[in-house]
């Protein structure tokens, strides 16, 4: 029996095999969509780049060399150098670490928070729902970047505060989705059945409702990642995100702005990086939406 047979077995022999088999089916379905494969490859490259940045980058990201200021792209400096003579390629490579950290932490903070708040509001209803959704609506009614700006201004500039600010501004959207999903699941007979078996609300929400909300959440988070990267870059651009000399892509564009007409590469190269990574997340998110949609399951 090959591994593939084992994965696609109609009668798995253990819970582990059943779950791995399901994941494998999702994965193969994802592979059938060329755009989502492209998205996945981009994200994979981003992760690899971030992990191996010290070995990939030919120069130090912060080492200045004033004699080599603002050189155009060449064999020695693939993306040219900036106003302090730093190699832009090396800075973009190191910057991937910052981007990945921002994206990862924002997802880790805001998605579970939104999921939990939405599920609690949807499951209990009544006053709990009104209070929680009231708070959510207040956050939703303010523009994301402005709100993030306000938070960073209050907390002080810096990459950590930028992450916290973005996370705080992005959970309400997830709470809304989770609540809508919970409302449709709440009255399902399989939920009534576990309640009849004596399960307490915590168990019902965590074990039975949340697993059904997660797929739409994963899709939404992936699609939102592009927005998160742009917000982080925006904060960096204004000077409230990562502080120099950190090679954050938004901050790099901001500095290159001064020379955009004569030395176009300084602002453009990190711009490309932002566009490519954002697109990668969008493609992957679109593919995941087709694959993970519970309605398409089992077909």
């Amino acid at each position, binding site marked *: 029996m090959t591994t593939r047979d084992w994965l696609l077995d*109609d*009668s*798995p*022999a*253990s*819970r582990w*095999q*059943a*779950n791995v088999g*399901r994941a494998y089916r999702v994965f193969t379905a994802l592979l059938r969509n060329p755009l989502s494969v492209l998205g996945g490859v981009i994200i994979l490259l981003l992760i690899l780049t971030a992990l191996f940045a010290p070995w990939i980058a030919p120069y130090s990201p912060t080492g200045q060399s004033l004699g080599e200021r603002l050189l155009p792209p060449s064999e020695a400096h693939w993306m040219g150098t900036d106003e302090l003579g730093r190699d832009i390629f090396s800075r973009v490579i190191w910057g991937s670490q910052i981007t990945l950290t921002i994206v990862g932490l924002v997802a880790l903070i805001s998605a579970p928070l939104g999921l939990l708040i939405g599920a609690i509001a949807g499951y209990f209803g009544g006053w709990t729902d009104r209070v929680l959704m009231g708070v959510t609506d207040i956050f939703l009614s303010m523009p994301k970047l402005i709100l993030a700006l306000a938070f960073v201004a209050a907390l002080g500039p810096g990459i950590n505060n930028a992450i916290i600010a973005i996370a705080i501004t992005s959970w309400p959207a997830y709470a809304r989705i989770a609540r809508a999903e919970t409302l449709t699941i709440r009255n*399902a*007979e*399989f939920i*009534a*059945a*576990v*309640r*009849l*078996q*004596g*399960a307490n609300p915590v*168990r019902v929400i965590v*074990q*039975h409702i949340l*697993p*059904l909300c997660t797929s739409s959440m994963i899709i939404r988070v992936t699609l939102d990642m592009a927005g998160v990267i742009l917000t982080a870059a925006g904060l960096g651009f204004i000077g409230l995100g990562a502080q120099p000399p950190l090679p954050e892509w938004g901050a790099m564009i901001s500095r290159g702005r001064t020379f955009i007409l004569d030395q176009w590469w300084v602002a453009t190269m990190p711009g490309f990086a932002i566009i490519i990574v954002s697109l990668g997340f969008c493609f992957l998110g679109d593919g995941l939406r087709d694959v993970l949609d*519970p309605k398409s*399951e*089992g077909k």
Partner: protein
Amino acid sequence: MSAIELKNLDISYGDSKVVHGINLAIAEGESFALVGESGSGKSTILRAIAGLAPDWTGEIAVLGKARSHGVERGVARQVQMVFQDPYGSLHPRKTVDSVLSEPLAINGIGNRGERVEAMLTAVGLDHRFRFRFPHQLSGGQRQRVAIARALMLEPKVLLLDEPTSALDVSVQAEILNLLKRLRREQGLTYLLVTHNLPVVSFLCDRLAVMRQGRVVEVADVEQLKQGRLVEPYSQELLAATVA
């Protein structure tokens, strides 16, 4: 002692009262049917006994103990319910194994693997199905899983809400046979809700005919078999089935 006793039971949904003044006593080991058309309130009574329709007045006693209005942990091991729709009553992301282990985990019962295997055998499901997801099962197999889930806590009373009406005739026969055998083997009490009188004739000892939230008539199943139901409305229902 009665398995289920209902006294002056009124049930409301929101502002409207859907069940009026029900008085019924179902003996232990009995199989009792509530029959009537949609909207007659028969399913609502089941949900109130289970604790899923908390807005009622009157008395509900299960195995001699008065029941509170919500879902109770203590009642879980005495009363369980099987739902109508085999497609909506199983969690789409959980394998048969986790569906059947869950009640054991909730109630802190050990030896789960063996119990699950034993129950699969009892409801006539091959052990190959243990780690399948619901979408890999047919309607009849799903309903077997739902019955197995209800029996995992070894309850005395089973509430059956139209357990076969979504199934094909031949599958219905299998499930009805299964329910009959399980009742005999485990000494269960059934309260069955259905609109299908032949099913009552096969599976039940007594029946109550309901209309617009009220019990019209309580009869022995022999009366049903011989067409000797008393009330005109019961006769009407019977005529619609037989004709």
